[in-house]
């Protein structure tokens, strides 16, 4: 029994001197794993137009009902173009179903996780905020 007590003390002492696993958050950021489901990103084509064809599938599948799509008839071609696309992050549960269902792979889950805000309005994001500013999609 005494040996066990000493082994216990030794174990905790080793931990005392080992490196802490704490991430000091505002200064150090966390790198999410590849398949992390953060804030959505709307992908664009080479002309900086959203890939979305406003089919409305994501709106339908969303279990929280937090997607709102506004669209109009495509002036120069068949189909529709999306004019606004709002995701209400007050209600989104990051299930990723909208991404799964999209026939055009127009929407993906991004890595951004800092979604706290002091006013609710800023958490209802529109197309402009969701559009991918950096990445060009090969997927036309």
């Amino acid at each position, binding site marked *: 029994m005494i040996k066990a007590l000493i082994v216990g003390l030794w174990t*905790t002492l080793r931990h*005392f001197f080992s490196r802490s696993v*704490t991430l000091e958050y505002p200064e150090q950021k966390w790198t999410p794993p590849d398949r992390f489901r953060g804030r959505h990103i709307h992908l664009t084509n080479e002309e900086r137009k959203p890939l979305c064809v406003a089919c409305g599938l994501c709106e339908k599948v969303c279990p929280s009902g937090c997607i709102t799509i506004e669209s109009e008839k495509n002036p120069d071609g068949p189909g529709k173009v999306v004019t606004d696309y709002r995701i209400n992050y007050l209600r989104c549960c990051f299930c990723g179903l909208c991404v799964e269902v999209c026939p055009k792979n127009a929407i993906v889950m991004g890595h951004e996780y800092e979604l706290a805000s002091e006013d609710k309005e800023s958490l209802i994001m529109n197309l402009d905020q969701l559009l991918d500013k950096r990445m060009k999609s090969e997927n036309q």
Partner: protein
Amino acid sequence: MIVDIVLQIVKIIVIFAVILTCVAYLTLMERRCLGFFQVRLGPNRVGPWGLFQPIADGLKLFFKEDMTVLHANKFYFILAPVISFVAVLSCFAVVPFAGNAYIIDIPVAVLYLMAISSMGVYGVLLAGWSSNNKYSAMGGYRATAQMISYEIPLALALVGVLILSGSMSIVDIVNSQNGMWYIVKQPLGFIIFLICILAETNRCPFDLYECENELVAGYQTCYSSMKFGLFYIGEYAHIFLACCLITLFYLGGWNGPVLPALAWFFIKVFFCAFCFIWIRATYPRVRYDQLMNLSWKVVLPLAFLNLIVTAVIKVMF
């Protein structure tokens, strides 16, 4: 005469300020060390390395709502934290920090310590009883049983030290350790003393009377704000006192080479405090029956054995 009294009062104020500062930083030390033991950082946000954390904690306690529960016995409810606090702080009156840094050195200091420190249990018992609910009451009963069971071996272990030093004055006890600390001469006594003082100060693995997962918060369940704060300070002051006593009785007090006496004293005391925290980080809480068995069936006989052997050796040589 007047000058003497004023000097004495100034001394008391200074020493108590030092003690309370140490106690405040003991809480910080505990939280940070526990953090390191659990491979995290502990509080480090308030000030550099979290050094202002105790001040922030204190302020927070002041601003909390001070409640007295309706069905409590008001008088004892308020009296209880005061008793706990006063009982511990009065003990420091006879604790010498260095060769001459003490408030008073009375020839029966050890007796005084034993008597006053056992007063603390009244605070806990009254708190448990006057809050008038089952968790507090259970905490109070456990406290009484635990204190009584562990005070006896504690005193017996101390008698070993008293036999060797031949005096009850703490200054004399420390001086008689010049050259050889009593931890060497009294290893068994030291371990018994350590176990008992852990139980007396209500530390893990013996923190039976406020164990969160059984009793909510034991005797403190109904306390808030500064009334809780007094218990809290009292508890940590008790730990600080325990560390001082271990240092004085077994680790040679302020004796040590090169560094000044005061520095040695505080190094030893904070090393003891570290060990307290280390033990808390390591061992799980014992069960109530194990606690009682340990006291009456293991520690007490060993304490008697230690006492007899010490006495026999002292008489023979």
